[in-house]
């Protein structure tokens, strides 16, 4: 198995708060990796370190290395904007741009970085919305506002928007926590279809979700990576007592 992202001695801070404590994790290529753990354990912060979104927060800083295909994305001279085009992100709450149509939302990443060729944009809209399994629901309504559709559709629109810039990695930060079970199932099916082409990292509170979709699972606690392995093994035969306690619902 080939590693897409490797962190080495990763530490992340919010001011004086030490949120990630020396995490070494290897994210396998073209697979789904779930990160589970109780609230506040640093799951979201960890993936936000993987596309340099952590540093946007005031007072936040990162130490250590995050290797994307063997190259440190925190090396001096590395452009955070370039990193983010390779490592896309979907957030907890659907956040389509309210002032843009569904069409413009889908290709926002292209149009805002200067792509003007309508043929390219039209093709990308159709392709991305089909990848996100949203095309059939919105194809007659592409001029409607991005916030006029349902929450589940909005989240798939956000996935389509992330896919439109053709990233190699897709980070999802609890993408289903604001959605109902049907919308959640749609997104999980979608992730399954996408994993041949993309490396996917999903943060989730929902252990059933991790068990359903993920090939690998990482368990975090208090900013540390406790255990990482094949999902089946983590859930059926965890090595650490802490992992077992969390999975069996004895805390968290």
């Amino acid at each position, binding site marked *: 198995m080939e590693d897409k992202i490797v962190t080495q001695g990763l530490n992340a801070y919010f001011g004086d708060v030490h949120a990630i404590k020396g995490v070494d994790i290897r994210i396998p290529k073209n697979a789904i990796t779930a990160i589970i753990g109780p609230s506040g354990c640093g799951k979201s912060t960890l993936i936000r370190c993987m*596309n340099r*979104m952590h540093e*946007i927060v*005031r007072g936040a800083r990162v130490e250590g290395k995050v290797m994307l295909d063997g190259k440190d994305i925190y090396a001096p001279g590395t452009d955070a*904007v*370039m*990193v*983010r*085009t*390779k490592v*896309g*992100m979907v*957030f907890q*709450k659907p*956040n*389509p*741009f*309210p*002032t*843009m*149509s569904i*069409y*413009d939302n889908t290709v*926002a*990443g292209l149009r*805002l*970085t200067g792509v003007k060729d*309508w043929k390219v944009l*039209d093709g990308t*809209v159709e392709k991305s919305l089909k990848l996100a399994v949203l095309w059939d629901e919105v194809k007659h309504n*592409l*001029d*409607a*506002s*991005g*916030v*006029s559709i349902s929450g589940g559709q909005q989240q798939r629109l*956000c996935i389509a*928007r*992330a896919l439109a*810039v053709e990233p190699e990695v897709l980070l999802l930060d609890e993408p289903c926590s604001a959605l109902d079970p049907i919308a959640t199932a749609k997104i999980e099916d979608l992730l399954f279809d996408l994993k041949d082409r993309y490396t996917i990292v999903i943060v989730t509170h929902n252990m059933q979700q991790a068990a359903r979709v993920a090939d690998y699972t990482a368990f975090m606690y208090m900013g540390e990576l406790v255990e990482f392995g094949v999902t089946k093994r983590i859930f059926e035969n965890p090595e650490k007592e802490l992992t077992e306690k969390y999975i069996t619902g004895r805390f968290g």
Partner: protein
Amino acid sequence: MNRYAYRKLKDRAASGLALACVVAALVPLVYILAEVVRVGAPAINWEFLTSRTKGTGEPGEGIGNAILGTLLLVGYASLIGLPVGLLTGVYVSEYGNNRFGTTVRFFNDVLANFPSIVIGLLAYALVVDMLNVGFSLIAGSFALAIIMIPIVANTTEEALRLVPNSLREGALALGVPRWKTVMKVMLANARAGIVTGALLSIARIAGETAPLLLTAFYSNYWSASATEPIASLPLTIFRNYNSPSDVLLHQAWGAALVLILMVLTLNIGVRLFMMKRNRKPKVVKKTWKTRLSLRA
């Protein structure tokens, strides 16, 4: 008296007091409006709006040059004040998370509540005296622009702060550069608030009198020259009201009515604009269908 009745009484008293205060606040406003319309309206006719001031009370006198002067002063001031204020607001909100940003924010607040006569003195010292331009349209516009900048900057900053952070993060996570995120996502979503602030700042400077005394001064002639003194509605009111002539006094009321109507129109325009914006638009932009029909 039982407790329930006592509580009820207190409730009534508080409501009554609040209502009385509202009435007390409204009475002067309504009175001023009514009085300005009553005395001012008879003075207004076509000749009054299109002839120049003479300051003598002769027949055929008007306030046309003062209306033009106010429009020019406000126009030039907006040309300077709006872009500077807007960019200051953008800077403070989007790039001002540091000591410099905090300082700028502080001085903006101070400047926004500065006595306007002092700003007039500054413009006098700088433009009229030091640059040796003399009393002029440009000096007046400069003073008004200085008054405008902190208002526009503060409302812009406020409007940008109201845009959910998730939209900023959403754009940045797509690999959109920061300035593009600010221009196309943040400003687009803050547009309603920014336009409101801009229009209100224009309404505010349209009625400024004190700084114009020291900068634009006054003229009884038609003038659009940037370096000549120029008339304005507030100063017309001020000058005419101090004159012994009844005709001039009525012209002051007429000018006051014109000024109030200009400011009210702007204010009501802002309200209508906001009401329209608050109804969420279903269709954002014709991009897809219009292009499909173009291709066909």
